[in-house]
């Protein structure tokens, strides 16, 4: 009995299947279309809409301005420049305050507390010089700019202006195989790459979203600007006559940022034509009506969802990394510490790329945040060059108030103009920080794309540094 039922069922199913061949291939679409068609006919007949005309015509008027051929781009650049200017100038003071509080005062206070409690030197070093200091550093340099940048950006978004930026920029990004909204994630990346990666959620087409995530690292983030500015001031500004120094070094930093945008477009283009070719793509972009921004809500969401969220992830990674930084400088094998061994071994190899072992080690162990790269480099340079009287001791990161003193340390470590240029390039083109890597993994849920996003920039960076170095040696020497 059951068996005949089973075969009957199969017969019916196969009959149904055979009938589907006669229905033709556009049967599915025809049904869906007719449902939509009926629905809209019924709606047209029965529903009367309160006219939204006046509000909409105002929107249209604003839109005519912000998307106009001549004014569209200038308005966009002005607004974005304003956001960056407010961020940079506004973050200086609170950052200094936090650094004073957490590093200049907090660190010695904790040290003396530990001494009073009789902690062994290694525990005190590991916890306070390593973990605490690295965490304090990340908070002091990361928190203020993000707390200013993200609310401003979210305000523009809430106002409805950002979709218009995507609308204006789409042509350029379309040519690179990407989505116009990548203009937004790219600008967001200038604040923080991890936030830029999260922002890629607004791109609803799978392929374009992956492209935006993988290339976000080419936006020079907040944590890298200070490195760029410091190195450009010392070495590039120092290489030209004094009255040109400011302009030339600023130009060099902006040049690096623009180079980042170029790389972002070129890599998007390459990815969309090679490894990501098979991913599905569906473009659409809604231009929502303008509305007055809800300031309090914006402040709350951007501080909690973006700033605190990203900062928390950074701190979680900074603590263990701080311990590692302290350990490599303090664990000795034979005469030398681990760090010195590493630097000696990698020096010949890194010289091919115009870098040095210190820089390489700094980028490896300062992976939690780009902000602690310079303090780590300074500490390692002092350690490996055996300079006396500077710094705070092995494994203790530090920064100097005076640019001239920093210059002395770096030049003492064998740095040249070429090293500086390569460091600037490598700072742009290297792996994302661990926070961003983790965020990429969370967002894509794929180890493969996380690995691509991590190693692609390093390979590019090494290639670019190699050719810069060898061409420089060929032409200048």
């Amino acid at each position, binding site marked *: 009995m059951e068996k005949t039922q089973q075969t009957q069922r199969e017969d019916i199913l196969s009959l149904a299947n055979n009938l589907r061949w006669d229905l033709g*291939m556009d049967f599915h*679409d025809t049904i869906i279309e007719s449902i939509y*068609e009926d629905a809209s006919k019924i709606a047209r007949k029965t529903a009367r809409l309160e006219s939204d005309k006046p509000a909409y015509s105002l929107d249209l008027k604003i839109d005519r301005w912000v*998307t106009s051929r001549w004014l569209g781009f200038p308005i966009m650049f002005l607004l974005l420049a304003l956001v960056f200017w407010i961020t940079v100038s506004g973050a200086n003071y609170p950052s200094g305050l936090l650094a004073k509080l957490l590093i200049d005062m907090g660190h010695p206070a904790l040290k003396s507390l530990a001494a009073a409690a009789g902690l062994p030197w290694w525990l005190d070093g590991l916890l306070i010089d390593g973990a605490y200091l690295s965490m304090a550093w990340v908070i002091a340099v990361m928190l203020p700019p993000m707390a200013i940048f993200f609310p401003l950006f979210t305000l523009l978004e809430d106002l409805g202006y950002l979709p218009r930026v995507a609308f204006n920029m*789409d042509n350029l990004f379309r040519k690179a195989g990407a989505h116009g909204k990548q203009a937004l994630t790219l600008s967001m990346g200038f604040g923080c790459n991890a936030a830029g990666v999260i922002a890629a959620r607004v791109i609803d087409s799978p392929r374009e979203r992956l492209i935006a995530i993988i290339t976000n690292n080419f936006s020079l983030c907040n944590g890298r600007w200070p490195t760029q500015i410091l190195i450009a001031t010392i070495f590039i500004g120092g290489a030209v006559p004094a009255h040109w120094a400011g302009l030339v070094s600023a130009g060099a930093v902006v040049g690096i940022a623009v180079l980042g945008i170029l790389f972002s477009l070129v890599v998007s283009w390459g990815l969309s034509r090679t490894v990501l070719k*098979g991913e599905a793509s569906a473009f659409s*972009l809604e231009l929502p009506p303008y509305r007055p921004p809800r300031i309090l809500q914006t402040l709350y969401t951007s501080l909690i969802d973006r700033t605190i969220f990203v900062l928390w992830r950074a701190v979680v990674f900074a603590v263990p990394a701080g311990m590692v930084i302290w350990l490599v400088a303090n664990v000795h094998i034979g005469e030398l510490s681990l760090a010195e061994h590493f630097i000696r071994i990698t020096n010949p190899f890194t010289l091919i790329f115009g870098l040095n072992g210190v820089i390489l080690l700094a980028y490896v162990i300062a992976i939690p945040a780009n902000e602690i790269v310079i303090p780590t480099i300074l500490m390692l340079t002092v350690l490996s060059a055996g300079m006396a009287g500077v710094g705070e001791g092995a494994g203790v990161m530090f920064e100097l108030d005076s640019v001239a003193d920093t210059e002395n340390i770096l030049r003492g470590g064998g740095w040249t103009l070429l090293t500086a240029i390569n460091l600037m390039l490598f700072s742009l083109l290297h792996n994302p920080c661990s926070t961003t890597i983790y965020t990429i993994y969370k967002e894509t849920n794929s180890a493969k794309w996380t690995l691509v996003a991590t190693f692609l920039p390093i390979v590019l960076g090494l290639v670019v540094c190699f050719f810069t170095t*060898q061409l420089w040696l060929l032409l200048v020497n």
Partner: protein
Amino acid sequence: MNSTHPGASLLIGVAILAVLLWALWPKRGLLALLNRARMNTRRALLEDALKFLFDCEYKGVSCGLNSIAGNLNISADKAAHLLNRLRAMGLIRMEEQEFFLTDTGRPYALRIVRVHRIWERYLADETGMGPMEWHGEADLQEHNMSAEAADELAARMGNPVFDPHGDPIPSARGELPAHRGRALSTLREGDIAQILHIEDEPHTIYEQLTALGLYPGMQVYVMDITEGKVSFAANGEECVLTPLFASSVTVELLPERAPLPQKYELLSSLKLGEKAEVVGISPNCRGQQRRRLMDLGVVPGTIISAELRSASNDPVAYRIMGATIAIRKDQASLIFINKKEALPNEQTSGL
């Protein structure tokens, strides 16, 4: 500071880059070649031969040694060897220089055809691959995918019954409808027909047919047919093909009364401030992109108006059902509209 001469290291660097590029280059690189060689096993050849024999049987064409060798792109010697093996396995038989599938060979061939067409459907609907790449990719996958995995994939897509070229997909039980339609080249002047199928091999012919914008389901009207060329109207555009190319298109004659295929205007031709009624979306717009447009309200009957042009010229923002949606030019040219029937009815514009 560097022991080697920079010129020498530059050369070495360029060489390493070149080797890397060569190894990783998509399609022609070393990795891709190795991958293809791994896929192109003897089993793959056997299966391809079975597939070709099935195709001949389905279309009612005879199939000899040379046509098999030509289709598989191997020498006649190798083809003869291959066919001997197939005969020894009891999958094919030979009668008067022609080859036929046996009753054990046919289900085997059908299974390969099924996986191939399901893959083409999948690539067309769920991925961003272009029409020119479906066939080659499916050719690689058909030998590696089990029947169960193919069933699962088909079920996920709602058990499609046609591949994107218009070929029916054999059911899991191996059923296939009888061959329908005739070649476009056999029609007469004045005939109205619907395209059923566009042959995807050889590649160059398919490329040109795709470039003309032909797709299964499209209506054509034959304007003139001579020994040297076939000219017909498809979607209001005049197309001219040689009879050889036209024979790659299978059509079905429509009854005389069928509405004359009219020329649709494209959404991309709508000027700012103009209004039109949506007539439909081209079948060349597939998968996610199609669903997205329908979700936004791009369905027959919707009134759509062009509102804004981006500062960089493309995309254009359209007012659809009370929302402003930017659509790129290449997508807007896949949406058919009718400017005349768009009534200046205020009530509809607000919808």
